[in-house]
């Protein structure tokens, strides 16, 4: 039982990372109907920029909560700018083009970032500085939770709550939802669609950057291809929750993290990466709208 609870905790901490990345996928899809395959690479850039900021300010030698906050905010700001730039340069010119063109462009941006990443950062893995010294936060019997795991879960929950607030309670959030429901009508009502889309990319990218920093804290090995698999998995998480649906992305991410952990804990980790894609196929076959998504009739 203790072991099961520990696995559950491991799964939640791991799923929190997927959830943060999945949120970006789902927000962009909700607003643009575009699957932004470059999103995993933004997560990578987030982790990398955190690494460089921490080293530039030599924060690695003196672990502190303030230092972590500085790195987190800097990486989020950088990635927000990167997300907006990618949208402006790569996706906006194609907004009226067939959806497939935008999708393929997204794959191109993803490849571009991976390869430029290898050129700029080098292909060697880097070890993320310990911005927090790891210690036990609490222990119940053999159930051990480290302060970093706790930090990951808390930061993920805070950011998700903040996002929920932005989307449901602010003017910008209302504009976002309006664009998502019907972009031309929203434009006619005076909503600046370009700005909303730009803002959506910035929000999603900032969350991906936060995920990158959290991974750097809990699993401190980062490299330019680190975004590939988590990017795909987070996409599965977004589909699992119902793509375009924000609470769905959170639930999907957490669920995927838990399932993967239980599979590696009780079956074999050889199946862990496969399970995400088995879930994807099963969802697409039996419940294409995901767990939380509402059915939509598409006019052909």
């Amino acid at each position, binding site marked *: 039982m203790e*072991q099961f609870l520990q696995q559950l905790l*491991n799964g939640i901490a791991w799923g929190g990372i997927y959830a943060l990345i999945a949120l970006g996928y789902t927000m962009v899809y909700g607003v643009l109907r575009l699957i932004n395959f470059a999103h995993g690479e933004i997560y990578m850039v987030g982790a990398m920029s955190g690494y460089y900021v921490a080293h530039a300010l030599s924060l690695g030698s003196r672990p502190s909560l303030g230092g972590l906050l500085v790195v987190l905010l800097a990486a989020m700001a950088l990635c927000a700018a990167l997300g907006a730039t990618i949208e402006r340069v790569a996706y906006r010119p194609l907004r009226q083009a067939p959806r497939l063109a935008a999708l393929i*462009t997204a794959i191109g941006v993803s490849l571009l970032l991976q390869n430029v990443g290898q050129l700029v950062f080098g292909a060697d893995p880097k070890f993320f500085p310990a911005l927090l010294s790891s210690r036990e936060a609490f222990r119940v019997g053999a159930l051990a939770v480290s302060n970093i795991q706790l930090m990951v879960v808390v930061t993920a929950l805070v950011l998700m709550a903040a996002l929920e607030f932005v989307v449901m309670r602010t003017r910008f959030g209302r504009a976002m939802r309006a664009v998502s429901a019907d972009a031309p009508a929203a434009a006619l009502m005076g909503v600046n669609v370009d700005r909303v889309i730009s803002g959506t990319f910035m929000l999603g990218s900032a969350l991906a950057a936060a995920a990158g920093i959290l991974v750097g804290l809990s699993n401190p090995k980062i490299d330019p291809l680190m975004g590939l698999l988590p990017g795909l998995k987070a996409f599965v998480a977004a589909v699992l929750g119902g793509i375009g649906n924000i609470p769905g992305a959170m639930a999907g991410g957490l669920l995927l993290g838990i399932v993967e*952990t239980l*599979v590696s804990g009780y079956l*074999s980790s050889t199946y862990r990466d496969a399970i995400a894609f088995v879930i994807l196929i099963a969802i697409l076959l039996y419940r294409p709208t995901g767990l939380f998504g509402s059915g939509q009739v598409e006019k052909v």
Partner: protein
Amino acid sequence: MTAPATARGRGWRAPLALGRALALAAALGAALACGQEGGGGSASGAEPIRIGHFASLTGDTATFGQSADAGIRLAIEEINAAGGVLGRPLLLISEDDRSITEEARTAAQKLIQRDGVVALLGEVASSRSLAAAPEAQRAGIPMITPASTNPKVTEVGDYVFRTCFIDPFQGAVMARFAFEDLGARRVAILSDFKQDYSVGLAEFFRKTFRELGGEIVADERYTSGDIEFRAQLTTIRGAKPDAVFVPGYYTEVGLIAKQARELGIDVPLLGGDGWDSAKTLEIGGDAVEGYYFSNHYAADSDNPRVQAFVRRFEERHGSRPDAMAALGYDAAGILADAIRRAGTTDGPALRDAIAATRDYEGVTGRITIDADRNARKDAVVLKIEGGRFRFFRTVPAS
């Protein structure tokens, strides 16, 4: 890891923007893959003897390739300074495989076909040596891997040699060490199922440990590149082992050690020569203290030959040589010795000369190449103490 990316890009009719992006990406890739030349020496103007080294100069196990390359380079510089071999200098041509298995084969092909090398040195990782070895065998060019310990590597053919011991020996060394020195009776294994090296080492450890009367209480796996091991470690913790055998590469070992400590696993972790990198200490920090691993040599050994090598290496490269550097140094030395004895660089004659190597005094011990083209030599067990690898004991070749 890159396979899905290329698969995604291939076969789509790309719009112009994507085409440009891909072309740029391809150009970047080509720039990264460019070979490096060097190590030419002071020997006379005679036509140099070209020796190829394919190695993981970048990527996941970059320190292995860089160390081996530094060791080989030092050996070749010394040989050239002493007048070269057969009156000709040696020229080292190094090719990066970016720690990717398929790239190792391409790198070996390039060295053989484009650069016309007379012999190949490389790789450290067994999977990559296995990928490249058939190329050397087909071309009839001897290949010496400095540090691939999986038995299958030299089984590829009679042109493939190694200067290190093999995993059945290394696995048995650690199994016996766990049973006899640590008094462990219940051991858990956490191995990398994507690496032939790790799978092989786990297999031989398991076999010997059971023969001794011990029990394997958990047998968990991960994949190279993984960063999350808490699920497997939680299962291992539940099995209450006396020690955990982690025959992985340094990239993952540091993370595994950290997560193991966080979960409250306080029994020692044991490993193989894949741990031998300064990165294990950098990433693992306090978490790897008190752990043991088997290795090819100890830099703090009091053997004068080792001490002289360590001093020259530090002068030349500014860092302490790890086992991969020492093995690279010995591999290049054995190759030069064989060329000298063969009196020619012809493939078959050179192969016979390497196969006839007996009691070569290397920095990693006295090396004899046996009938299976493996090196027979001693192993050492190192302990991580005070942020350093310290010599613990020698285990003689049986």
